């Protein structure tokens, strides 16, 4: 939302996306599983009737209708006036919700870098296809937001926002979702990028987002250390966000229980999403963003 120095920020975009990757992203576009209402005239079918070449329906003529849309062929056959209705093509709004709480700094490679690259890739695809892009960073509520970016001109602004958002603070997902939903940014494709390790739970926040009629994609990024812990001994684990502690003695049994819990937690999130028509993706921060974007996201038809 702040002022953007385009000279420096152009360079900084390459910190997130290299040139080759951007070249490959140029051929992609965001898909929406829903037909959504846009704001401006665009390239996407919308629910709204309007001017396009794609026929939608007929309706009876009423006084005052534009005679240019009267279907004269029908009038010839039935001697009644019908108007031809066409689907209006509007632009697509892509909302990217990026978690920047302290926990994202964890991992080698860190989850922060991973989801920022992923968000940058998605934003890049959206911007080059003239979609409207909103990016919201959150930890304890929304900490940074850029709205209504459209076209390549906004690549720098997008990179600027992502790069300046350092992971800090405790996460409050529900509060962030409430703020996003109430900011009246309109419907569209929403991609939430986070580790979803929220002490208060993820369901309240996701419910708010689902209520906003978005085509919701949930990408859960976890570090290898979280997926396959490589720790041993008698430890006092300290939560990086709320400094909560857990005293454990690593044993094979404890690790088994941990993995079982992790798997259960991810499945719970996945079930929650699939039951409500949202798409769920679990990503390992050690995987390459390129392969995730170019292969997996295309397979689940977020991109084409």
């Amino acid at each position, binding site marked *: 939302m702040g002022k953007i120095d385009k000279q420096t920020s152009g360079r900084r975009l390459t910190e997130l996306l290299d040139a080759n990757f951007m070249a490959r992203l140029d051929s992609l576009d965001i898909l929406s599983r829903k037909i959504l209402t846009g704001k401006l005239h665009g390239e996407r079918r919308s629910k709204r009737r309007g001017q396009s070449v794609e026929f939608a329906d007929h309706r009876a003529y009423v006084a005052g209708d534009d005679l240019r849309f009267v279907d004269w062929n029908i009038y010839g056959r039935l001697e009644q006036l019908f108007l031809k209705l066409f689907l209006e093509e509007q632009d697509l709004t892509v909302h990217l919700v990026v978690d920047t709480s302290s926990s994202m700094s964890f991992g080698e490679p860190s989850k922060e870098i991973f989801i920022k690259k992923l968000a940058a890739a998605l934003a890049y695809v959206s911007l080059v296809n003239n979609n409207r892009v909103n990016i919201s960073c959150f930890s304890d509520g929304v900490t940074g937001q850029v709205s209504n970016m459209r076209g390549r001109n906004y690549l720098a602004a997008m990179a600027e926002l992502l790069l300046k958002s350092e992971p800090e603070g405790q996460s409050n997902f529900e509060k962030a979702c409430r703020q996003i939903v109430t900011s009246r940014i309109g419907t569209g494709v929403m991609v939430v990028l986070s580790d979803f390790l929220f002490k208060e739970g993820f369901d309240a926040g996701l419910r708010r987002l689902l209520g906003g009629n978005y085509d919701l994609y949930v990408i859960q990024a976890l*570090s290898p250390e979280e997926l396959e812990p490589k720790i041993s001994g008698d430890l006092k684990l300290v939560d990086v966000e709320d400094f909560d502690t857990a005293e454990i003695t690593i044993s094979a049994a404890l690790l088994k229980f941990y993995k079982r819990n992790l798997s259960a937690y991810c499945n719970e999130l996945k079930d929650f999403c699939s039951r409500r028509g949202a798409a769920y993706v679990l990503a390992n921060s050690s995987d390459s963003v390129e392969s995730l974007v170019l292969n997996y996201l295309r397979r689940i038809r977020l991109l084409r």
Partner: protein
Amino acid sequence: MEWLTPLIAVYAAAIVLPLFVLLYFLKLRRREQIISSTLLWKRAVQDLQVNAPFQRIRRNILFFLQLLMFLAMLVAIAQPVLSLIGGPSRRYVILIDRSASMNATDTGTNRLDEAKKEAKTFVESMRDSSFFSVGESGDQAMVIAFDNRPKVMCSFTSNKRQLIAAIDMITATDGRSFLAEAVTVAKAFAQSVTTEANNRSAEEPGKLLLFSDGCIEDIDDIAVGKEELSFYSIGKSGENVAVTAMKARRSYETPEKVEIFATLSNFSKQEISTDVQLSLNGNVQAVKAVRIPPREAADANNKGRAGNVAIDFSLSYGERGVIEVRHLYKDKLATDDASWSVIFPPQKLSVLLVTGGNAILESALRACPIANLKVSNPGEYESAAKALAGAQQAYDVIIIDNYIPQNLGRGRYIIFGRPPGGIDVTAAEELKDQVIIDWRARHPVLNYVNLENLFAAQCIKMNLPRDSEVLAEFNEGAAMAMVRRNASIYLLVPFDILQTNWPFDSGLVLFCYNAVEFLAEEGATGRISELQTGQALIVDGFTPETEAKISGPSLDEKEVKAGSSGSIIFDSVDRVGIYSLNASGQVPRYFAVNLLDNRESDIEAVGEISLSGEVVKAQQGDVRRANFPAWPFLTGIVLCIAILEWLIYNMKVRI
């Protein structure tokens, strides 16, 4: 099951166990690690249900293994002993032979070490007083080491440590074995109630445990019931060659020539060829090869005599010197491999006979090899003795016949008839018609003298002091006695030989010869006679309170002091070899101490001993522990549990 130190274990348990359980409840000092979220870990920990302490213990096999390990350790600290002996507690007398034959090395180290080892094993297997059963006391034992004399190392006690220390303190000697006195001492101790005996009956007989190789001199004098004594035979092989007799003396005809006679005995069952070497003052003078026949075959009553061979050497030497005869055969006992003798320069004896006229005595003395025999009457003697005023007499030996001298200078006297005054001997009464009932045939004075037929028509009954040495006895009084007073030696013969039938006996000449030789040798400065191990070393002729030092094979410059009678008495010559006595201002005197004992050299182990006709068989096998301490097994269990715990721990933490 008995416990040696139960209280220590109880105290240790009281401290260790609560601490150990507490440690399990205490939290570890953990390493801090920052993570993205404790959400899943907490759930995992909850799943393990580690927060409930009792559940934690209930499910923790390691805790129980450690607890088991501690319990085993604590029980081990209490030193439980598995007792395999039943019945009431007993008293034991441990008799350990430490004589020369126990130096034999046929058992690996030597027999004494083996005997000590077995005795210690027995002590360890004695029952201790039980801590939990009040009033019951454990076995008790006393330790006696014996050679020529018994030595009480430890009186009755149940303290095993004290008993083992006493056994450890026993050192080997080269003495002979005399057990009877040891048994007497043991019985005397067994009948006295010691402070530690508590309410133990004094009449309770102590069991004698004899650890010996069976080479015991006075085995026939011991009256012990078969059940009272257990015999533990020590030793295996009987192979030994010994010098069992040796004598070095100057020739009568040519005093410069020294003749050495020795007997070598072979106690093994095969003939042995070896070299015998003669050394003078440490320098080898001659070596002779000898072939010693094997010992005779044993029969039911007899072990079989050893094979003997006599050997003689001669050499020409006019000075004082130490002669050693040594055989070079490598056998199991080194003590009897050599024998020593000290020779002195040829000496011409000077003897004074003071008599009113005794042709028989005079002729008997003239038959002896005396260089200078002077005969004088009492008047001449008294005037000469008065002039001497108590100083050393000029003669080697003075013989006073039937006359009470008024003045006696320092010297060696043979006094026939009434004893003189001033030597603590008084004449009590006159006795008539006395016959000899006993005499010490082995004493040098009576060597080869047969007194069996001696009859005295008249004699004097003497009241002798306690330290006198009686050599022969009439039926009512002493017939011959030796008294040492005022640095002088008096051989008292309380009768006139003319009142006896002695003049008709060749024994008179032998007596005169022996007595003169013995007294001359006893008094001569620097002279000694050879000793057997265990005999007391007595040297006369010192001024009272003279200080001297004795050195020998087992002692280094021991200080001794002459008594009021001018004698130095030293009773610890218990190793063979040459001893020297150095008194200030005098030439050193040498003493040869030899074993020269057939019985002690016969080291063949015996399977049984005969005590007053009762045969006691040796105990079969080594002494085995009857009480087993359980702590080594418990320590083993602790080790096994520790290994098991380590395995389980590793299996649990393996990722």
